[in-house]
């Protein structure tokens, strides 16, 4: 869980431990820590860091009350994102290069607009989203990149 205190040093330490080569910046899922910083700027949010079980959590809190968390594995890759708040953050950005696959899988569902709880699965990506006006929540993750022993249910 997020500790509540801002620990910018964590980012640097994490990078030093895990990142051997710079990964091209792409936003959201599949991105790197630089992309997380860009996301925080895009969503006009403040950034906090904390360690999870075997991952780093970068939390973006916006002035509008939205909370976004990006989960980085030991390779410094964002393997999961989660969100909650009174609106849905721009998923095109949060899902990054995986957004087209999400859209395609969404289109294959019957009546996706009439469910306030949705699970969208592709070979590489799982998106679980739900809620309604005033309270949306969801998460998206790349099953292949989840650290061993981490349950999807913990990615909140």
């Amino acid at each position, binding site marked *: 869980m997020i500790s509540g205190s801002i620990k910018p040093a964590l980012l640097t330490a994490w990078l030093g431990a895990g990142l051997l080569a710079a990964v091209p910046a792409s936003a959201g899922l599949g991105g790197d820590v630089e992309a997380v910083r860009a996301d925080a700027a895009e969503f006009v949010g403040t950034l906090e860091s904390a360690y999870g079980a075997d991952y780093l959590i970068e939390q973006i809190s916006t002035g509008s009350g939205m909370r976004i968390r990006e989960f980085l594995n030991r390779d410094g890759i964002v393997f999961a994102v989660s969100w909650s708040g009174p609106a849905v953050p721009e*998923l095109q950005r949060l899902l990054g290069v995986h957004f087209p696959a999400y859209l395609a899988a969404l289109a294959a569902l019957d009546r996706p607009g009439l*469910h306030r*709880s*949705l699970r969208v699965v592709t070979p590489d990506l799982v998106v*679980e*989203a*739900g809620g309604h006006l005033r309270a949306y*929540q969801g998460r998206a993750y790349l099953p292949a990149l989840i650290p061993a022993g981490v349950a999807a249910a913990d990615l909140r």
Partner: protein
Amino acid sequence: MRALAPIRAVARFGTVIAGGMLAACIGGNGVTATGSKPVTPTPNTMMLTVDTGPSAATGQINHAYVTIKVCAAGSQTQCANIDHVLLDTGSSGLRLVRSVLTAAAVTLAPELDAQGQTVEECVTFGGGQTWGPVALANLSMAGESADKLPVQVMDDTGAGAPPPASCGANGTLINSVSGFGANGVLGVGVFAQDCGAACVSASTPLPLYYGCTSAGVCAAENLALADQVTNPVAMFAADNNGIIVNLPNLQSANGDLKVQGELVFGLSTQTDNALPAIGLTVLGTDANGDFTATYNGGTTVLPALIDSGSDSYDFNDSTIATCSTGAYVGYYCPLKAPMSVFAVNSGVGVNNATNEVPFAIADPNSFVANAAAFAGLGGGGGATNFVWGMPFFYGRPVYVGIEQRAAGPYSGPFFAY
């Protein structure tokens, strides 16, 4: 256990057409004299119909529709009856498809912000989003009316500003009649406004309300409560503290062709909308409009609501197979159906009842192809919330109490059954 005395319930529920059989038509819109009503009660009951949808988008399932009368604000003549408006207890505010209004020759005046820009809105519904201007309408339902009601015009014709890049970026735009399987959405949930305080003074405005220039360039902005898309019930002169949704039990497990029930305005404001003194489960909601639910004995506490805008019980159970082909992709297709499960609801705050609800999930491939109402439909599958969708409503009255309004001994926001 249930709210209405049996005789009363029969009289109120009108017709049920099941599997091609026409049951006896009893009653009508339920406004029958009982001898104990006030001298001139406001007609507060309207027909609620579950059928296969508007002619432009047939084949709908578990959609409860009403017919509403809409006039341009301030006009006595520019009016139309709009049928097949979807009843949605999971949102607040009226949203109408622009092409439907245009065909009915009703033009609603757009709402302008302090800078004189048009106010437009982007709202996420499940896997889709609506986009279009906020406009003012005079709405009539039964004997109730809401004047100068801020509504959203879902801009399927693109007459207004185009959606900003952030709208539609969460899925598909569902502005059209086919998007909702309806000519509009009547949000009669637990809140007076759709967004509320979060949209009034955020340091960074939410991506919900936008101010759009005449050139069609839109930027997110805050909006005062009175200007937000508003639950029309909250604007009624009377009967403005909530609603009752009455739908009968279905006749066939494989689907009924058509179901009729009623939508009642007000809670304990007239003799026909009393809250039952015993057997009522009142579930207070948090500031987000959710009570909590735990599914099938699990330990995960999920935000939950009772939602006529969802066509199925929506919840996550990885042990139930999901339909991969046919007309119900994404819904549950249990290998052995019906599959009996349960969830425990708990209210939040003062109205903190706890109640276990058993329910059953059917195999939708067994459903009658041209039916409209199905009791055992499960789906969705997201693990972040729990949704008591339309199947929950069949056979039990559902009460929705609006925030900050007293309803008998209770105070909203709450769901009750």
